[in-house]
């Protein structure tokens, strides 16, 4: 299976199963589109007719071009057959290991964000802070269930994690004290709204955190409208100076500014450019996740606007990169040469199998977006996984478990997408969140185009 598209002056051909990418001229673009459907004679005739005004398009030239295409097919770089479905089955049977936890260190928040999927940080329950005892047990659970994995990841999440900063520090200290004994390497990340950032937090993050995710929605009026304080004031002026100080202290690396866009700012590239113009260079901007009847939900009419925005973003990023003031966008950070292996691409994000969320009480859920939904309670850190059916269901949830994905060119880039999005959109983790698919495919087209453009620079 191949995917062909034209973007920003480039003709691009992607070979789905091998991951090969080709940048081609118009004649080759047309020849490839006909290659599996017509005979060589029919293709030659069609191309000679279409390009009759171009003297270099001769019968011999087309013959050579078709030989090139056949060679790429023989080398399994075009029209490659997908033989991975059996591996997806093997993956399900593999002995499961846990390698990452999302620690809900706080089910409380000091902001009152309108679109919060976690219901203002409380996940439809009571406010709660994780105790050191529960957190320590979670880290032990991770070590015990991680098999031979060396790199273990823990994200301090909420709510607002810094409301429980004392326990965060205790847990990191504990992890550092035992990791060498077990041959493990803990990598900590922190997701914060920034309100409580001070010098102590900055020192801690720079010493211990592999990555810091900083919530900022871009322009002040956009951010303040959606992320107010509990008394209704804006939070932009409070947090931006703190973010700048933290990022500067980190040397401008190992962080992401993470924004959310909604129906209110479908021109979200302006929010990304705003953050870039403030000096932030590691950027991420995500579509809101919510029920479709919310006033800020993205609508079907928004979709073409959003797709165009992703193209605008890619073109501007190329322009700025050439001018020497480039920035990165999380979803355009693909590495064609050293990207993930086929197993990773089949198994996806690992939710419910190698990645789980832990509530302040120690309950285990497949990921942070399922927390509070009792149907998806998997067990707890004291007793382990008590509902193995859920884990088994997530192990089976991959691109080959969905008919729609089997015929999609982007399946080995998205790995079937986000199980939580599928569940919230269709009622099943094996459903397909089509709106998200459209956005994802456009992001991939843009990201790959940017890599092709790099080759020209």
């Amino acid at each position, binding site marked *: 299976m191949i995917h062909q598209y034209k973007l920003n002056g480039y003709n691009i051909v992607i070979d789905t199963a091998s991951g090969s990418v080709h940048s081609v*001229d118009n004649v080759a673009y047309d020849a490839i589109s006909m290659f599996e459907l017509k005979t060589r004679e029919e293709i030659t005739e069609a191309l000679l007719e279409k390009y009759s005004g171009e003297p270099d398009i001769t019968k011999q030239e087309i013959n050579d071009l078709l030989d090139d*295409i056949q060679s790429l097919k023989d080398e399994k770089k075009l029209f490659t057959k997908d033989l991975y479905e059996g591996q997806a089955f093997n993956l399900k049977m593999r002995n499961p290991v846990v390698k*990452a936890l999302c620690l809900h260190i706080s089910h409380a928040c000091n902001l009152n964000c309108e679109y919060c999927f976690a219901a203002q940080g409380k996940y439809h329950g009571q406010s709660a802070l994780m105790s050191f005892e529960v957190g320590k047990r979670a880290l032990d659970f991770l070590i015990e269930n991680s098999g031979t994995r060396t790199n273990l990841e823990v994200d301090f999440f909420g709510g607002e994690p810094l409301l429980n900063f004392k326990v965060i520090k205790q847990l990191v200290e504990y992890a550092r004290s035992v990791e060498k004994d077990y041959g493990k390497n803990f990598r900590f990340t922190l997701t914060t709204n920034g309100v409580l950032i001070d010098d102590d937090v900055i020192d801690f993050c720079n010493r211990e955190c592999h990555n810091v995710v900083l919530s900022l929605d871009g322009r002040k009026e956009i951010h303040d409208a959606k992320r107010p304080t509990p008394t209704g004031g804006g939070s932009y002026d409070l947090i931006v100076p703190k973010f700048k100080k933290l990022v500067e202290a980190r040397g401008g690396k190992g962080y992401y500014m993470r924004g959310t866009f909604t129906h209110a700012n479908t021109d979200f590239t302006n929010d990304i450019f705003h953050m870039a113009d403030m000096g932030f260079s590691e950027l991420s901007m995500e579509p809101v996740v919510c029920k479709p009847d919310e006033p800020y939900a993205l609508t079907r009419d928004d979709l073409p606007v959003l797709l165009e925005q992703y193209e605008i973003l890619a073109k501007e990023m190329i322009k700025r990169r050439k001018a020497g003031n480039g920035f990165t966008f999380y979803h355009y950070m693909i590495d064609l*040469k050293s990207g993930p292996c086929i197993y990773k691409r089949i198994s996806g994000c690992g939710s419910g199998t*190698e990645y789980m969320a832990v509530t302040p009480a120690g309950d285990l859920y497949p990921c942070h977006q399922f927390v509070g939904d009792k149907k998806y309670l998997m067990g707890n850190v004291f007793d382990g996984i008590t509902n193995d059916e859920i884990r088994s269901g997530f192990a089976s949830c991959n691109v080959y478990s969905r008919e729609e994905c089997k015929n999609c060119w982007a399946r080995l*880039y998205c790995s079937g997408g*986000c199980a939580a999005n599928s569940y919230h959109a269709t009622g099943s983790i094996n459903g397909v969140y089509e709106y998200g698919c459209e956005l994802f495919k456009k992001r991939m087209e843009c*990201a790959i185009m940017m890599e092709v453009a790099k080759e020209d620079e």
Partner: protein
Amino acid sequence: KKTNRIKTIETRDLSKSAGCGECQTACKTSCGVANQKCENK
């Protein structure tokens, strides 16, 4: 190639890859794996 009409970009051959599981598990909402890096190759 016999012509210069197709430029093949260097990519990792998926059919020859792999899985060690050491790769990393920003977005928290719209996961794909395309932008992850392999740590072991």
